[in-house]
């Protein structure tokens, strides 16, 4: 692998994104809209907004990057650019890291804007540090990217890729503990939620935003999230084949 090729790929992905200002506007605008909605839906219950809002800041980038990556990667596969890249002196890791850096940067922008809005205008209060929330958000963005990359290998069309969002992301969001504490769910759902990476991403966010202390469990959360990201990236890399049938 080479730093030049990785950097070239990052630059290329960012240029592609820049060509599509509407998508950037949606990536940044939609979470702002949703946070605002939630703020006023829970107008009479600021505690609920503080509990849900803080963690949602960290989960938006996960969802966005999952969609963006699975569609972009599918396009690379369908249009033949991936096949061409595979004949060039470019390591698979160059492609993956190139994407990760570009989308990571986008995630920083997204979570910073949404955080500024939430903390500045919507009166969101969290116990922990705002920077830690943003840092976790970026980590979740990379996790979403890695899962999206892997998922894209199983879609033949953009319609299918879009459906992976509800199929892979929604169950994780429902079961992660955001809406209902996991120990109040049916036991078998709690068991399933134990194997979803988003459960740990949420738990880490909840610990930071609720100031529950960052002890051993926080470290375990981080390890699981990083481990799942690496695993998804490895699986994703395995789907980038130099030779195809």
């Amino acid at each position, binding site marked *: 692998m080479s730093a030049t090729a990785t950097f070239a790929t990052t630059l290329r992905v960012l240029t592609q994104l820049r060509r599509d200002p509407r998508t950037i506007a949606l990536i940044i605008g939609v979470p702002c809209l949703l946070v605002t909605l939630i703020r006023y839906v829970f107008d009479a219950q600021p505690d609920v907004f503080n509990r849900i809002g803080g963690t949602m800041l960290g989960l938006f980038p996960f969802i966005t990057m999952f969609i963006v990556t699975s569609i972009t990667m599918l396009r690379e596969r369908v*249009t033949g650019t991936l096949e061409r890249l595979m004949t060039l002196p470019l390591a698979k890791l160059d492609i993956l890291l190139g994407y990760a850096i570009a989308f990571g940067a986008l995630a920083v922008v997204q979570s910073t804007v949404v955080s500024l809005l939430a903390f500045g205008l919507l009166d969101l209060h969290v116990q922990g540090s705002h920077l830690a929330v943003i840092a976790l958000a970026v980590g979740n963005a990379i996790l979403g990217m890695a899962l999206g990359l892997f998922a894209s290998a199983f879609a033949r069309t953009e319609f299918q890729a879009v459906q992976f969002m509800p199929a892979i992301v929604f169950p994780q969001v429902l079961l992660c503990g955001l809406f209902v504490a996991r120990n109040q769910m049916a036991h078998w759902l709690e068991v399933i939620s134990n194997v979803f990476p988003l459960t740990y991403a949420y738990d880490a966010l909840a610990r930071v935003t609720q100031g529950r202390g960052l002890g051993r469990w926080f470290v375990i959360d981080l390890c699981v999230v990083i481990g799942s990201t690496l695993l998804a990236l490895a699986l994703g890399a395995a789907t980038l084949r130099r030779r*195809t049938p």
Partner: protein
Amino acid sequence: MAAIEIRDLRVVRGGNVVLPGLSAEVAAGSVTGLLGPSGSGKSTLIRAIVGVQIVAGGTVLVLGEPAGSAELRRRVAYVTQAPSVYADLTVRENLRYFARVLGLPRARAEDPITTVGLEDEADRVVQKLSGGQRARASLATALLGEPEVLVLDEPTVGQDPVLRRDLWNSFHSLADDGATLLVSSHVMDEADRCDQLVLLRGGEILATGTPDELRERTGTRDLDEAFLKLIEQAGE
């Protein structure tokens, strides 16, 4: 000397035998035309030569190395049949990206744009270009970094006649500089522009030789007729 050597190549795609056992050579420094109707196995053969096709058997050597080996990735350039450039980038941005991947200085991204005649469209987004212009943008990226072998899958489809002539002239000047070109086409009138021909039908080689040799062998003046004659002869 052969730049590409294919021995008993067998390719099965989706349960169909596309290439049952093909052997051929492509002479170094030549422009070799790979001709045959749609579905004859041209693209599959080309994919095997650039090493992106899973093969069931046989060997393909390019510049003495197994097809697709890491060492060849700088020396062999490939243009897919459908234009494989980023539609949301400009022509120049595409060229600069591929140049960076190849580790070339930025300035080297300019020459291919001129070669394919896209100077006026260089800063336009590929999506906004015509089909022929997109194909040329895709071709331009393959010219980066002076590859020793160029494998081009139907690069001149949909181009206007003047441009087609210019492209063939650039292919020949690349070959004069020592490059080997394998160019596929399904139109026989392009065959005359090649030094060597490989006629493919149903995954098997019908004939090889120079255009003149093929005409002589079949006693025809036109390569289209020659192709028909060869099919008839093979059927007998």
